[in-house]
């Protein structure tokens, strides 16, 4: 057999024996691409796919500014609750939970693998104007907890030297996780465990946006 009977897909040798093979001549490729298309693998073959652009970012919002009394004492190591009578959950496969079953107060968010921009503000109750604690995001996967920078600060509203700051984090998780906001024990002082107020209901919020 002569080499000029060799074909690769639809490509045949020229008079010099060279074969100009195009992508579509391959047995597992089927493309009629447009500008900026990707080659994507699906069901055993490669084909051209146009990247899509969405104007929606998956997100969760808790923060109604509601005058609701915080449901438990503020203790270092505990998780912060956020109030929402109508929580916004626009993240696929995500869910909200209250570990102590407080109505409309949420301290746990189950999220799928991905990358998230997270922001939250906690506003605690204190026994004196010197009261203060820091808080930060954590994720738990199969019993292992990871903390995420940066922490926020909550101080007594009478403490003009400690304006409220928020916790912010870029959270990247390889598998489904439970996201929480933890009250950091170190440095926490004068936290109120009785007589809780509406501070967290009025000032607290949590924003989570899936960015990858």
């Amino acid at each position: 057999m002569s080499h000029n009977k060799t074909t690769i897909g639809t490509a045949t040798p020229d008079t010099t024996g060279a074969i100009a093979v195009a992508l579509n001549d391959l047995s597992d490729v089927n493309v009629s691409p447009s500008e900026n298309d990707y080659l994507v693998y699906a069901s055993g073959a490669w084909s051209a796919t146009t990247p899509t652009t969405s104007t929606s970012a998956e997100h969760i919002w808790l923060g109604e500014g509601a005058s609701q009394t915080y449901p438990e004492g503020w203790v270092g190591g505990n998780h912060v609750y956020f109030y929402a009578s109508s929580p916004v959950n626009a993240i696929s496969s995500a869910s909200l939970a209250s570990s102590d079953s407080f109505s409309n107060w949420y301290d746990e968010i189950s999220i799928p693998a991905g990358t998230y921009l997270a922001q939250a503000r906690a506003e605690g109750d204190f026994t004196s104007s010197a009261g203060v604690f820091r808080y930060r995001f954590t994720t738990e996967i199969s019993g292992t907890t990871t903390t995420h920078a940066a922490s926020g600060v909550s101080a007594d509203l009478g403490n003009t030297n400690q304006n409220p700051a928020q916790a912010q984090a870029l959270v990247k998780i390889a598998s489904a996780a439970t996201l929480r906001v933890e009250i950091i024990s170190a440095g926490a002082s004068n936290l109120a465990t009785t007589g809780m107020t509406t501070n967290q209901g009025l000032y607290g919020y949590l924003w989570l946006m899936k960015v990858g």
Partner: protein
Amino acid sequence: MSHNKIKIGTATPDSTGVIDVALNDLSNVDVSGASDGSALRYVSAEWTHAPSVSASYATAGYAAGWSTYTSGSGNSYTATGGLNSYRTHDATNWEDTSESVQITFGGLDLDRGTEGGTIPSATRFSRVILDEGKYLLIATTFARSSTSSNWVEWQWRDLNTNAVLGPRWRQYGTAQKNIAQGFGYVEVSAGTTRTCDIRCVAINGSMADGPHNFQDDIISAFQVG
């Protein structure tokens, strides 16, 4: 030349001379391990498979305005009345739409409220006007005071219905700490618009709208759905 000596990657001719070449047979391609959704990606002089090609996000709209004025005592905010919306401060004429004082995209708009019952002639943003969608409302506010124990509390509200759109935030009169950040969230139904402002909901002592430094503050909306 015999056809059966031709080999491309692992592919060899069949009895009719046809070579069944797959993508992985090419010299500069390694897509072993590809699964559904994988994409071909060029990395380090080789085509390989990337985890996936998912939809990329591009916001449908945003609006942001900020202060560019650098000094002035300003007018006091009050918890009620005509001076109760936060406002940026710029000395330029209202018609100034340059990106030195604002950026807008996607049909969102910034507007001014009244200042003591008078519509300011200078660029002083106090409202965002939103059409259908879901929005994160973001602000950094500045309020001037000479007393550290003075404070003001802000909250995103619907201008027309007074609906609460997010938590309160407090800022004090302390010189370095009279800047604070606040967030809100609002959904706007199809065929409607909502005008949102940052309302003074509580105040202790005198806090005024006079600026302090260049670009201390921002009032903005960012569409997420």
